Protein backbone atom coordinates (compact mmCIF):
# COMPACT_ATOMS: atom_id res chain seq x y z
CA UNK A 1 0.00 0.00 0.00
CA UNK A 2 2.73 2.44 0.95
CA UNK A 3 4.47 1.60 -2.29
CA UNK A 4 1.39 2.69 -4.15
CA UNK A 5 1.35 5.95 -2.18
CA UNK A 6 4.96 6.56 -2.90
CA UNK A 7 4.41 6.06 -6.59
CA UNK A 8 1.44 8.41 -6.58
CA UNK A 9 3.27 11.11 -4.68
CA UNK A 10 6.31 10.74 -6.91
CA UNK A 11 4.29 11.07 -10.06
CA UNK A 12 2.47 14.06 -8.61
CA UNK A 13 5.83 15.64 -7.81
CA UNK A 14 7.06 14.90 -11.32
CA UNK A 15 3.92 16.48 -12.72
CA UNK A 16 4.48 19.60 -10.60
CA UNK A 17 7.85 20.00 -12.20
CA UNK A 18 6.61 19.57 -15.75
CA UNK A 19 6.21 23.24 -16.74
CA UNK A 20 9.74 24.04 -15.59
CA UNK A 21 11.12 21.22 -17.73
CA UNK A 22 8.85 21.47 -20.73
CA UNK A 23 8.61 24.85 -22.30
CA UNK A 24 6.73 23.61 -25.27
CA UNK A 25 3.19 24.82 -24.72
CA UNK A 26 1.78 22.16 -27.01
CA UNK A 27 3.10 19.38 -24.82
CA UNK A 28 1.84 21.25 -21.81
CA UNK A 29 -1.57 21.45 -23.44
CA UNK A 30 -1.52 17.74 -24.17
CA UNK A 31 -0.62 16.90 -20.60
CA UNK A 32 -3.24 19.32 -19.32
CA UNK A 33 -5.87 17.60 -21.41
CA UNK A 34 -4.65 14.16 -20.35
CA UNK A 35 -5.13 15.24 -16.75
CA UNK A 36 -8.60 16.51 -17.59
CA UNK A 37 -9.46 13.08 -18.95
CA UNK A 38 -8.11 11.41 -15.83
CA UNK A 39 -10.53 13.55 -13.85
CA UNK A 40 -13.42 12.69 -16.14
CA UNK A 41 -12.66 8.97 -16.18
CA UNK A 42 -12.37 8.65 -12.40
CA UNK A 43 -15.44 10.78 -11.76
CA UNK A 44 -17.42 8.53 -14.09
CA UNK A 45 -16.03 5.47 -12.38
CA UNK A 46 -17.22 6.66 -8.97
CA UNK A 47 -20.73 5.83 -10.05
CA UNK A 48 -20.04 3.01 -12.50
CA UNK A 49 -17.26 1.15 -10.77
CA UNK A 50 -18.19 1.71 -7.16
CA UNK A 51 -21.98 1.57 -7.30
CA UNK A 52 -22.50 -0.30 -10.57
CA UNK A 53 -24.63 2.39 -12.20
CA UNK A 54 -23.63 3.18 -15.77
CA UNK A 55 -24.18 6.84 -16.34
CA UNK A 56 -24.29 7.47 -20.06
CA UNK A 57 -25.12 11.11 -19.52
CA UNK A 58 -21.94 12.03 -17.68
CA UNK A 59 -21.21 14.68 -20.28
CA UNK A 60 -24.27 16.62 -19.14
CA UNK A 61 -22.51 17.49 -15.87
CA UNK A 62 -19.47 18.62 -17.80
CA UNK A 63 -21.56 20.75 -20.14
CA UNK A 64 -23.64 22.24 -17.32
CA UNK A 65 -20.44 23.26 -15.59
CA UNK A 66 -19.06 24.78 -18.78
CA UNK A 67 -22.23 26.67 -19.59
CA UNK A 68 -22.73 27.88 -16.02
CA UNK A 69 -19.27 29.37 -16.06
CA UNK A 70 -19.72 30.92 -19.49
CA UNK A 71 -23.05 32.46 -18.52
CA UNK A 72 -21.83 33.82 -15.19
CA UNK A 73 -18.69 35.27 -16.73
CA UNK A 74 -20.34 36.75 -19.78
CA UNK A 75 -23.70 37.87 -18.49
CA UNK A 76 -22.90 38.70 -14.89
CA UNK A 77 -19.31 39.70 -15.48
CA UNK A 78 -18.09 37.43 -12.70
CA UNK A 79 -14.49 36.40 -12.42
CA UNK A 80 -13.60 32.82 -13.23
CA UNK A 81 -12.83 31.81 -9.68
CA UNK A 82 -16.11 33.23 -8.49
CA UNK A 83 -17.97 31.27 -11.15
CA UNK A 84 -16.06 28.02 -10.59
CA UNK A 85 -17.86 26.81 -7.44
CA UNK A 86 -21.20 27.56 -9.05
CA UNK A 87 -20.32 25.28 -11.93
CA UNK A 88 -19.85 22.52 -9.38
CA UNK A 89 -23.07 23.48 -7.61
CA UNK A 90 -25.06 23.46 -10.84
CA UNK A 91 -23.77 20.01 -11.70
CA UNK A 92 -24.56 18.83 -8.18
CA UNK A 93 -28.07 20.24 -8.42
CA UNK A 94 -28.59 18.41 -11.68
CA UNK A 95 -27.38 15.22 -10.03
CA UNK A 96 -29.99 15.59 -7.32
CA UNK A 97 -32.83 16.42 -9.69
CA UNK A 98 -31.91 13.67 -12.13
CA UNK A 99 -30.70 11.19 -9.56
CA UNK A 100 -33.77 10.90 -7.35
CA UNK A 101 -35.95 9.50 -10.13
CA UNK A 102 -33.34 7.73 -12.26
CA UNK A 103 -31.45 5.88 -9.55
CA UNK A 104 -34.52 3.70 -9.09
CA UNK A 105 -33.87 2.29 -12.55
CA UNK A 106 -31.72 -0.75 -13.08
CA UNK A 107 -28.96 -1.70 -15.47
CA UNK A 108 -29.49 -0.73 -19.06
CA UNK A 109 -32.53 1.36 -18.22
CA UNK A 110 -30.49 3.65 -16.03
CA UNK A 111 -27.85 3.92 -18.75
CA UNK A 112 -30.38 4.90 -21.37
CA UNK A 113 -32.35 7.23 -19.11
CA UNK A 114 -29.27 9.23 -18.23
CA UNK A 115 -28.25 9.29 -21.85
CA UNK A 116 -31.68 10.56 -22.89
CA UNK A 117 -31.52 13.22 -20.21
CA UNK A 118 -28.17 14.46 -21.44
CA UNK A 119 -29.53 14.57 -24.98
CA UNK A 120 -32.50 16.59 -23.81
CA UNK A 121 -30.18 19.03 -22.06
CA UNK A 122 -28.15 19.37 -25.24
CA UNK A 123 -31.34 20.20 -27.10
CA UNK A 124 -32.20 22.82 -24.49
CA UNK A 125 -28.84 24.50 -25.03
CA UNK A 126 -29.43 24.32 -28.79
CA UNK A 127 -32.75 26.15 -28.70
CA UNK A 128 -32.13 28.72 -25.98
CA UNK A 129 -31.13 32.24 -26.91
CA UNK A 130 -29.16 32.92 -23.77
CA UNK A 131 -26.74 30.08 -24.55
CA UNK A 132 -26.28 31.22 -28.11
CA UNK A 133 -28.06 28.16 -29.47
CA UNK A 134 -25.90 26.29 -31.95
CA UNK A 135 -23.49 29.24 -32.12
CA UNK A 136 -22.23 28.48 -28.66
CA UNK A 137 -20.50 30.96 -26.38
CA UNK A 138 -17.12 32.58 -26.30
CA UNK A 139 -15.50 33.27 -22.98
CA UNK A 140 -13.02 35.96 -22.09
CA UNK A 141 -9.63 34.90 -23.38
CA UNK A 142 -7.01 34.11 -20.81
CA UNK A 143 -4.41 31.99 -22.46
CA UNK A 144 -1.79 31.15 -19.91
CA UNK A 145 -0.61 27.56 -20.32
CA UNK A 146 1.05 27.28 -16.90
CA UNK A 147 -2.01 28.62 -15.16
CA UNK A 148 -4.29 26.07 -16.76
CA UNK A 149 -1.81 23.31 -16.27
CA UNK A 150 -1.51 23.92 -12.55
CA UNK A 151 -5.21 24.57 -12.17
CA UNK A 152 -6.09 21.31 -13.90
CA UNK A 153 -3.42 19.38 -12.03
CA UNK A 154 -4.45 20.87 -8.71
CA UNK A 155 -8.14 20.25 -9.21
CA UNK A 156 -7.74 16.71 -10.52
CA UNK A 157 -5.26 15.86 -7.76
CA UNK A 158 -7.74 17.21 -5.22
CA UNK A 159 -10.52 15.17 -6.80
CA UNK A 160 -8.33 12.11 -6.77
CA UNK A 161 -7.41 12.64 -3.13
CA UNK A 162 -11.01 13.25 -2.17
CA UNK A 163 -12.15 10.10 -3.94
CA UNK A 164 -9.28 8.15 -2.49
CA UNK A 165 -10.17 9.21 1.01
CA UNK A 166 -13.93 8.77 0.68
CA UNK A 167 -13.93 5.56 -1.30
CA UNK A 168 -10.87 3.72 -0.10
CA UNK A 169 -10.44 5.01 3.45
CA UNK A 170 -13.70 6.33 4.84
CA UNK A 171 -16.77 4.21 5.69
CA UNK A 172 -18.52 5.68 2.66
CA UNK A 173 -16.47 3.58 0.24
CA UNK A 174 -17.47 0.30 1.86
CA UNK A 175 -21.10 1.34 2.04
CA UNK A 176 -21.11 2.19 -1.65
CA UNK A 177 -19.51 -1.12 -2.52
CA UNK A 178 -22.02 -2.94 -0.36
CA UNK A 179 -24.82 -1.47 -2.41
CA UNK A 180 -23.10 -2.41 -5.63
CA UNK A 181 -22.70 -5.99 -4.45
CA UNK A 182 -26.18 -6.49 -3.04
CA UNK A 183 -28.52 -3.68 -2.22
CA UNK A 184 -31.04 -5.90 -0.40
CA UNK A 185 -28.48 -7.14 2.01
CA UNK A 186 -27.12 -3.62 2.39
CA UNK A 187 -30.60 -2.40 3.27
CA UNK A 188 -30.99 -5.05 5.93
CA UNK A 189 -27.76 -3.78 7.47
CA UNK A 190 -29.02 -0.26 7.93
CA UNK A 191 -27.86 1.34 4.69
CA UNK A 192 -30.27 3.48 2.70
CA UNK A 193 -29.35 2.64 -0.88
CA UNK A 194 -31.17 5.56 -2.49
CA UNK A 195 -29.42 8.06 -0.29
CA UNK A 196 -26.00 6.49 -0.69
CA UNK A 197 -26.37 6.19 -4.45
CA UNK A 198 -27.49 9.79 -4.61
CA UNK A 199 -24.44 10.82 -2.62
CA UNK A 200 -22.25 8.89 -5.04
CA UNK A 201 -24.03 10.52 -7.97
CA UNK A 202 -23.37 13.97 -6.51
CA UNK A 203 -19.80 12.98 -5.79
CA UNK A 204 -19.43 12.03 -9.42
CA UNK A 205 -21.20 15.13 -10.74
CA UNK A 206 -19.73 18.06 -8.83
CA UNK A 207 -16.09 17.52 -9.85
CA UNK A 208 -17.22 16.92 -13.42
CA UNK A 209 -18.99 20.28 -13.44
CA UNK A 210 -15.85 21.94 -12.14
CA UNK A 211 -13.78 20.28 -14.86
CA UNK A 212 -16.30 21.58 -17.40
CA UNK A 213 -15.79 25.06 -16.03
CA UNK A 214 -12.03 24.83 -16.41
CA UNK A 215 -12.41 23.43 -19.91
CA UNK A 216 -14.64 26.33 -20.96
CA UNK A 217 -12.25 28.97 -19.68
CA UNK A 218 -9.27 27.13 -21.14
CA UNK A 219 -10.62 26.50 -24.65
CA UNK A 220 -12.48 29.86 -24.62
CA UNK A 221 -15.26 28.53 -26.82
CA UNK A 222 -18.05 26.10 -26.07
CA UNK A 223 -21.05 24.91 -28.04
CA UNK A 224 -23.68 22.22 -27.51
CA UNK A 225 -21.88 19.77 -29.76
CA UNK A 226 -18.54 19.98 -28.00
CA UNK A 227 -19.48 20.12 -24.32
CA UNK A 228 -22.91 18.51 -24.31
CA UNK A 229 -22.34 15.90 -27.02
CA UNK A 230 -21.62 12.24 -26.48
CA UNK A 231 -17.87 12.63 -26.70
CA UNK A 232 -17.19 13.32 -23.02
CA UNK A 233 -19.21 10.34 -21.85
CA UNK A 234 -18.06 7.97 -24.57
CA UNK A 235 -14.43 8.68 -24.01
CA UNK A 236 -14.65 8.57 -20.21
CA UNK A 237 -16.42 5.20 -20.41
CA UNK A 238 -13.87 3.76 -22.76
CA UNK A 239 -10.98 4.98 -20.62
CA UNK A 240 -12.47 3.66 -17.40
CA UNK A 241 -13.32 0.28 -18.87
CA UNK A 242 -9.98 -0.06 -20.57
CA UNK A 243 -8.16 0.80 -17.36
CA UNK A 244 -10.34 -1.24 -15.04
CA UNK A 245 -13.55 -0.35 -13.23
CA UNK A 246 -14.04 0.05 -9.52
CA UNK A 247 -10.62 1.45 -8.77
CA UNK A 248 -9.19 4.93 -9.04
CA UNK A 249 -5.88 3.98 -10.56
CA UNK A 250 -7.40 1.88 -13.35
CA UNK A 251 -9.41 4.64 -15.03
CA UNK A 252 -6.51 7.05 -14.56
CA UNK A 253 -4.18 4.66 -16.36
CA UNK A 254 -6.82 4.05 -18.99
CA UNK A 255 -7.22 7.78 -19.52
CA UNK A 256 -3.52 8.34 -19.97
CA UNK A 257 -2.99 5.44 -22.36
CA UNK A 258 -6.04 6.03 -24.53
CA UNK A 259 -5.57 9.76 -24.65
CA UNK A 260 -1.89 9.61 -25.49
CA UNK A 261 -2.47 6.87 -28.04
CA UNK A 262 -5.18 8.87 -29.72
CA UNK A 263 -3.20 12.07 -29.59
CA UNK A 264 -0.08 10.47 -30.95
CA UNK A 265 -1.96 9.12 -33.91
CA UNK A 266 -3.69 12.42 -34.33
CA UNK A 267 -0.59 14.58 -34.15
CA UNK A 268 1.88 12.52 -36.08
CA UNK A 269 -0.05 10.21 -38.33
CA UNK A 270 -2.76 12.61 -39.39
CA UNK A 271 -2.62 11.46 -42.97
CA UNK A 272 -4.14 8.24 -41.79
CA UNK A 273 -6.96 10.23 -40.31
CA UNK A 274 -9.67 7.64 -40.33
CA UNK A 275 -7.32 4.83 -39.55
CA UNK A 276 -7.21 6.06 -35.99
CA UNK A 277 -10.94 5.41 -35.65
CA UNK A 278 -10.42 1.86 -36.82
CA UNK A 279 -7.47 1.29 -34.52
CA UNK A 280 -9.11 2.94 -31.51
CA UNK A 281 -12.25 0.91 -32.09
CA UNK A 282 -10.19 -2.23 -32.45
CA UNK A 283 -8.26 -1.57 -29.26
CA UNK A 284 -11.48 -1.02 -27.34
CA UNK A 285 -13.19 -4.12 -28.66
CA UNK A 286 -10.11 -6.26 -28.14
CA UNK A 287 -9.51 -5.01 -24.62
CA UNK A 288 -13.04 -5.99 -23.64
CA UNK A 289 -12.53 -9.46 -25.06
CA UNK A 290 -9.08 -10.08 -23.66
CA UNK A 291 -8.97 -7.89 -20.55
CA UNK A 292 -12.50 -8.01 -19.13
CA UNK A 293 -11.22 -6.59 -15.84
CA UNK A 294 -9.37 -3.78 -17.54
CA UNK A 295 -5.66 -3.25 -17.66
CA UNK A 296 -5.21 -2.43 -14.00
CA UNK A 297 -7.69 -5.07 -12.89
CA UNK A 298 -5.69 -7.67 -14.76
CA UNK A 299 -2.35 -6.50 -13.42
CA UNK A 300 -3.48 -6.24 -9.82
CA UNK A 301 -5.33 -9.54 -10.12
CA UNK A 302 -2.10 -11.13 -11.26
CA UNK A 303 -0.15 -9.53 -8.43
CA UNK A 304 -2.75 -10.63 -5.92
CA UNK A 305 -2.65 -14.28 -6.92
CA UNK A 306 1.13 -14.14 -6.83
CA UNK A 307 1.09 -12.58 -3.38
CA UNK A 308 -1.67 -14.84 -2.13
CA UNK A 309 0.80 -17.71 -2.10
CA UNK A 310 2.99 -15.82 0.31
CA UNK A 311 0.12 -14.40 2.33
CA UNK A 312 0.51 -14.58 6.06
CA UNK A 313 -2.30 -15.78 8.31
CA UNK A 314 -4.27 -13.14 10.19
CA UNK A 315 -2.04 -11.54 12.80
CA UNK A 316 -2.92 -12.85 16.21
CA UNK A 317 -2.60 -9.48 17.94
CA UNK A 318 -5.40 -8.11 15.78
CA UNK A 319 -7.73 -10.83 16.94
CA UNK A 320 -6.63 -10.36 20.53
CA UNK A 321 -7.30 -6.67 20.24
CA UNK A 322 -10.83 -7.37 19.05
CA UNK A 323 -11.51 -9.84 21.82
CA UNK A 324 -9.94 -7.59 24.39
CA UNK A 325 -12.40 -4.93 23.41
CA UNK A 326 -15.35 -7.02 24.58
Amino acid at each position, binding site marked *: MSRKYLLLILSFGALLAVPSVIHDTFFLRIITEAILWIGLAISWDVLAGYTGYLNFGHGAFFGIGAYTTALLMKLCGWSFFLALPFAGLAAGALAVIAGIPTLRLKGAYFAIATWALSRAIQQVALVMDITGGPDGMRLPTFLHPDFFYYLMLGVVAAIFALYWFLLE*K*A*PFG*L*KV*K*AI*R*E*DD*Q*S*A*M*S*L*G*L*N*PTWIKLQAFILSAVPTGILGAIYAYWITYIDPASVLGDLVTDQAVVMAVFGGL*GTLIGPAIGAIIIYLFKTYFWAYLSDYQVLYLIILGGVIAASVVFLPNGLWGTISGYLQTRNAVK*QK*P*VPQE*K*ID*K*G*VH*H*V
Partner: protein
Amino acid sequence: MSEPLLQVNAVTKTFGGLHAVFQVSFHITPGEIIGLIGPNGAGKTTLFNVISGFYAPNKGQILFNGQDISGKPPYKLAVLGIGRTFQVVKPFAGLTVLENVIIASFARHPKRRQAEQHAWMILETTGLADRANAQASSLTLAGRKRLEVSKALALEPTLLLLDEVVAGLNPTEADRTIELILSLRDQGITILIVEHIMRVIMNISDRVVVLNFGQKIAEGVPRDVAKDSGVIQAYLGEAPQ
Protein backbone atom coordinates in the same frame (compact mmCIF):
# COMPACT_ATOMS: atom_id res chain seq x y z
CA MET B 1 -44.68 -11.78 31.64
CA SER B 2 -42.85 -8.79 30.25
CA GLU B 3 -43.98 -6.55 27.38
CA PRO B 4 -43.76 -8.30 24.02
CA LEU B 5 -40.74 -7.22 21.97
CA LEU B 6 -42.50 -7.82 18.69
CA GLN B 7 -46.18 -7.88 18.10
CA VAL B 8 -47.65 -8.95 14.75
CA ASN B 9 -51.30 -7.94 14.54
CA ALA B 10 -53.49 -9.41 11.80
CA VAL B 11 -50.90 -8.81 9.09
CA THR B 12 -51.96 -9.41 5.49
CA LYS B 13 -49.71 -9.24 2.44
CA THR B 14 -51.09 -9.86 -1.01
CA PHE B 15 -49.41 -10.16 -4.39
CA GLY B 16 -51.70 -9.51 -7.31
CA GLY B 17 -54.80 -10.70 -5.44
CA LEU B 18 -53.13 -13.73 -3.87
CA HIS B 19 -52.80 -13.74 -0.11
CA ALA B 20 -49.22 -14.67 0.65
CA VAL B 21 -49.83 -13.88 4.29
CA PHE B 22 -53.36 -13.55 5.63
CA GLN B 23 -54.30 -12.07 8.98
CA VAL B 24 -51.42 -13.52 10.88
CA SER B 25 -50.99 -12.49 14.51
CA PHE B 26 -48.44 -13.55 17.10
CA HIS B 27 -46.00 -11.96 19.50
CA ILE B 28 -42.51 -12.52 20.78
CA THR B 29 -41.37 -11.72 24.27
CA PRO B 30 -37.78 -10.71 24.98
CA GLY B 31 -35.33 -13.57 25.27
CA GLU B 32 -37.51 -16.07 23.45
CA ILE B 33 -36.64 -18.22 20.48
CA ILE B 34 -39.69 -18.51 18.28
CA GLY B 35 -39.73 -21.02 15.45
CA LEU B 36 -41.72 -20.19 12.35
CA ILE B 37 -42.61 -23.31 10.40
CA GLY B 38 -44.86 -24.46 7.65
CA PRO B 39 -44.74 -26.31 4.35
CA ASN B 40 -43.17 -24.80 1.24
CA GLY B 41 -44.96 -21.69 0.07
CA ALA B 42 -46.68 -21.22 3.41
CA GLY B 43 -45.61 -17.57 3.50
CA LYS B 44 -42.75 -17.77 5.99
CA THR B 45 -40.27 -15.79 3.94
CA THR B 46 -42.94 -13.27 2.98
CA LEU B 47 -43.73 -12.76 6.65
CA PHE B 48 -40.02 -12.32 7.31
CA ASN B 49 -39.85 -9.71 4.60
CA VAL B 50 -42.82 -7.90 6.05
CA ILE B 51 -41.36 -7.87 9.56
CA SER B 52 -37.95 -6.73 8.35
CA GLY B 53 -39.48 -4.00 6.23
CA PHE B 54 -38.83 -5.32 2.72
CA TYR B 55 -42.56 -5.46 2.10
CA ALA B 56 -45.15 -3.14 3.56
CA PRO B 57 -48.16 -5.08 4.88
CA ASN B 58 -51.43 -4.45 3.04
CA LYS B 59 -53.33 -4.70 6.28
CA GLY B 60 -52.46 -5.12 9.92
CA GLN B 61 -49.78 -3.74 12.12
CA ILE B 62 -46.38 -4.63 13.45
CA LEU B 63 -45.22 -3.24 16.76
CA PHE B 64 -41.61 -3.36 17.83
CA ASN B 65 -40.98 -2.32 21.42
CA GLY B 66 -44.46 -0.88 21.34
CA GLN B 67 -43.64 1.29 18.32
CA ASP B 68 -45.55 0.86 15.06
CA ILE B 69 -43.01 -0.14 12.44
CA SER B 70 -45.29 -1.39 9.66
CA GLY B 71 -44.10 -0.12 6.30
CA LYS B 72 -40.87 1.34 7.58
CA PRO B 73 -37.93 0.67 5.27
CA PRO B 74 -35.48 -2.10 6.24
CA TYR B 75 -32.56 0.24 6.82
CA LYS B 76 -34.53 2.07 9.53
CA LEU B 77 -35.54 -1.19 11.18
CA ALA B 78 -31.96 -2.35 11.12
CA VAL B 79 -30.95 0.69 13.11
CA LEU B 80 -33.88 0.15 15.50
CA GLY B 81 -32.46 -3.28 16.28
CA ILE B 82 -33.94 -5.82 13.90
CA GLY B 83 -31.30 -7.94 12.23
CA ARG B 84 -32.07 -10.54 9.61
CA THR B 85 -30.44 -13.13 7.40
CA PHE B 86 -31.52 -14.19 3.95
CA GLN B 87 -32.54 -17.68 2.97
CA VAL B 88 -30.52 -17.27 -0.21
CA VAL B 89 -27.35 -15.94 1.32
CA LYS B 90 -26.32 -12.51 0.16
CA PRO B 91 -22.67 -11.90 0.93
CA PHE B 92 -20.98 -8.88 -0.63
CA ALA B 93 -19.09 -11.26 -2.84
CA GLY B 94 -16.39 -8.90 -4.07
CA LEU B 95 -15.39 -7.81 -0.56
CA THR B 96 -13.52 -9.60 2.18
CA VAL B 97 -15.27 -11.32 5.07
CA LEU B 98 -14.03 -8.63 7.42
CA GLU B 99 -15.29 -5.85 5.16
CA ASN B 100 -18.67 -7.54 4.97
CA VAL B 101 -19.01 -7.37 8.72
CA ILE B 102 -17.51 -3.89 9.03
CA ILE B 103 -20.29 -2.59 6.80
CA ALA B 104 -22.86 -3.96 9.22
CA SER B 105 -20.94 -2.57 12.18
CA PHE B 106 -21.24 0.96 10.83
CA ALA B 107 -24.84 1.00 12.08
CA ARG B 108 -23.62 1.25 15.69
CA HIS B 109 -20.01 2.34 15.15
CA PRO B 110 -19.86 5.03 12.48
CA LYS B 111 -16.08 5.44 12.77
CA ARG B 112 -14.08 3.09 10.61
CA ARG B 113 -11.62 2.08 13.31
CA GLN B 114 -14.28 1.22 15.88
CA ALA B 115 -16.33 -0.59 13.28
CA GLU B 116 -13.34 -2.70 12.37
CA GLN B 117 -12.66 -3.62 15.99
CA HIS B 118 -16.28 -4.49 16.45
CA ALA B 119 -16.22 -6.62 13.33
CA TRP B 120 -13.22 -8.57 14.59
CA MET B 121 -15.08 -9.26 17.77
CA ILE B 122 -18.14 -10.52 15.91
CA LEU B 123 -16.03 -12.76 13.68
CA GLU B 124 -14.43 -14.17 16.77
CA THR B 125 -17.83 -15.13 18.22
CA THR B 126 -19.05 -16.64 14.99
CA GLY B 127 -15.78 -18.44 14.37
CA LEU B 128 -14.88 -16.75 11.10
CA ALA B 129 -11.91 -14.74 12.35
CA ASP B 130 -9.39 -16.96 10.61
CA ARG B 131 -11.09 -16.28 7.28
CA ALA B 132 -11.38 -12.53 7.86
CA ASN B 133 -9.22 -11.47 4.92
CA ALA B 134 -10.59 -13.98 2.45
CA GLN B 135 -12.95 -12.90 -0.29
CA ALA B 136 -16.54 -13.54 0.76
CA SER B 137 -17.07 -15.39 -2.50
CA SER B 138 -14.42 -17.93 -1.53
CA LEU B 139 -16.34 -19.20 1.51
CA THR B 140 -18.12 -22.54 1.60
CA LEU B 141 -21.88 -22.61 2.04
CA ALA B 142 -21.47 -23.11 5.78
CA GLY B 143 -19.08 -20.18 5.86
CA ARG B 144 -21.48 -18.00 3.96
CA LYS B 145 -24.34 -18.83 6.30
CA ARG B 146 -22.09 -17.99 9.21
CA LEU B 147 -21.14 -14.74 7.51
CA GLU B 148 -24.81 -14.00 7.06
CA VAL B 149 -25.33 -14.41 10.79
CA SER B 150 -22.21 -12.40 11.55
CA LYS B 151 -23.49 -9.47 9.51
CA ALA B 152 -26.87 -9.53 11.23
CA LEU B 153 -25.15 -9.76 14.61
CA ALA B 154 -22.89 -6.85 13.87
CA LEU B 155 -25.98 -4.67 13.95
CA GLU B 156 -26.21 -5.53 17.67
CA PRO B 157 -29.85 -6.39 17.21
CA THR B 158 -32.37 -6.98 19.94
CA LEU B 159 -34.40 -9.11 17.56
CA LEU B 160 -32.72 -11.46 15.14
CA LEU B 161 -34.60 -13.01 12.22
CA LEU B 162 -32.86 -16.15 10.98
CA ASP B 163 -34.03 -17.58 7.67
CA GLU B 164 -32.89 -21.20 7.23
CA VAL B 165 -29.40 -20.79 8.57
CA VAL B 166 -29.06 -24.49 9.31
CA ALA B 167 -30.54 -26.04 6.19
CA GLY B 168 -27.93 -27.44 3.85
CA LEU B 169 -25.23 -27.86 6.49
CA ASN B 170 -23.69 -31.18 7.49
CA PRO B 171 -24.48 -32.41 11.01
CA THR B 172 -21.27 -31.06 12.58
CA GLU B 173 -21.75 -27.64 11.04
CA ALA B 174 -25.41 -27.69 12.00
CA ASP B 175 -24.57 -28.44 15.61
CA ARG B 176 -22.08 -25.57 15.74
CA THR B 177 -24.70 -23.20 14.37
CA ILE B 178 -27.29 -24.37 16.88
CA GLU B 179 -24.79 -23.80 19.66
CA LEU B 180 -24.21 -20.33 18.31
CA ILE B 181 -27.93 -19.56 18.25
CA LEU B 182 -28.37 -20.73 21.79
CA SER B 183 -25.44 -18.68 22.99
CA LEU B 184 -26.91 -15.63 21.30
CA ARG B 185 -30.13 -16.17 23.19
CA ASP B 186 -28.09 -16.38 26.37
CA GLN B 187 -26.62 -12.98 25.52
CA GLY B 188 -30.17 -11.67 25.54
CA ILE B 189 -30.96 -11.56 21.82
CA THR B 190 -34.49 -12.48 20.91
CA ILE B 191 -34.73 -14.79 17.92
CA LEU B 192 -37.33 -15.58 15.30
CA ILE B 193 -36.18 -18.52 13.22
CA VAL B 194 -37.48 -20.16 10.08
CA GLU B 195 -36.14 -23.63 9.58
CA HIS B 196 -37.06 -26.66 7.56
CA ILE B 197 -35.34 -29.16 9.74
CA MET B 198 -37.88 -30.12 12.38
CA ARG B 199 -35.30 -31.58 14.73
CA VAL B 200 -33.63 -28.19 15.01
CA ILE B 201 -36.79 -26.16 15.39
CA MET B 202 -38.34 -28.45 17.92
CA ASN B 203 -35.19 -28.58 20.02
CA ILE B 204 -34.34 -24.94 20.30
CA SER B 205 -37.65 -23.08 20.06
CA ASP B 206 -39.51 -21.96 23.11
CA ARG B 207 -42.65 -21.68 21.04
CA VAL B 208 -43.46 -22.31 17.39
CA VAL B 209 -45.85 -20.58 15.01
CA VAL B 210 -47.16 -22.69 12.14
CA LEU B 211 -48.21 -21.17 8.83
CA ASN B 212 -50.07 -22.82 6.00
CA PHE B 213 -51.32 -21.09 2.85
CA GLY B 214 -50.44 -17.81 4.47
CA GLN B 215 -52.52 -18.35 7.57
CA LYS B 216 -51.52 -19.20 11.08
CA ILE B 217 -52.87 -22.65 11.85
CA ALA B 218 -51.24 -23.31 15.19
CA GLU B 219 -49.07 -21.78 17.88
CA GLY B 220 -47.62 -23.13 21.09
CA VAL B 221 -44.81 -25.07 22.68
CA PRO B 222 -43.19 -27.49 20.24
CA ARG B 223 -44.45 -30.61 21.94
CA ASP B 224 -48.11 -29.56 21.67
CA VAL B 225 -47.85 -28.27 18.16
CA ALA B 226 -46.28 -31.51 16.97
CA LYS B 227 -49.46 -33.29 18.06
CA ASP B 228 -51.84 -30.81 16.45
CA SER B 229 -53.92 -32.55 13.81
CA GLY B 230 -54.11 -29.49 11.59
CA VAL B 231 -50.34 -29.23 11.52
CA ILE B 232 -49.92 -32.89 10.74
CA GLN B 233 -52.39 -32.64 7.90
CA ALA B 234 -50.67 -29.58 6.53
CA TYR B 235 -47.37 -31.40 6.47
CA LEU B 236 -48.91 -34.48 4.96
CA GLY B 237 -50.23 -32.34 2.16
CA GLU B 238 -53.96 -32.49 2.88
CA ALA B 239 -55.96 -29.36 3.23
CA PRO B 240 -57.46 -28.97 6.70
CA GLN B 241 -61.17 -29.62 6.83
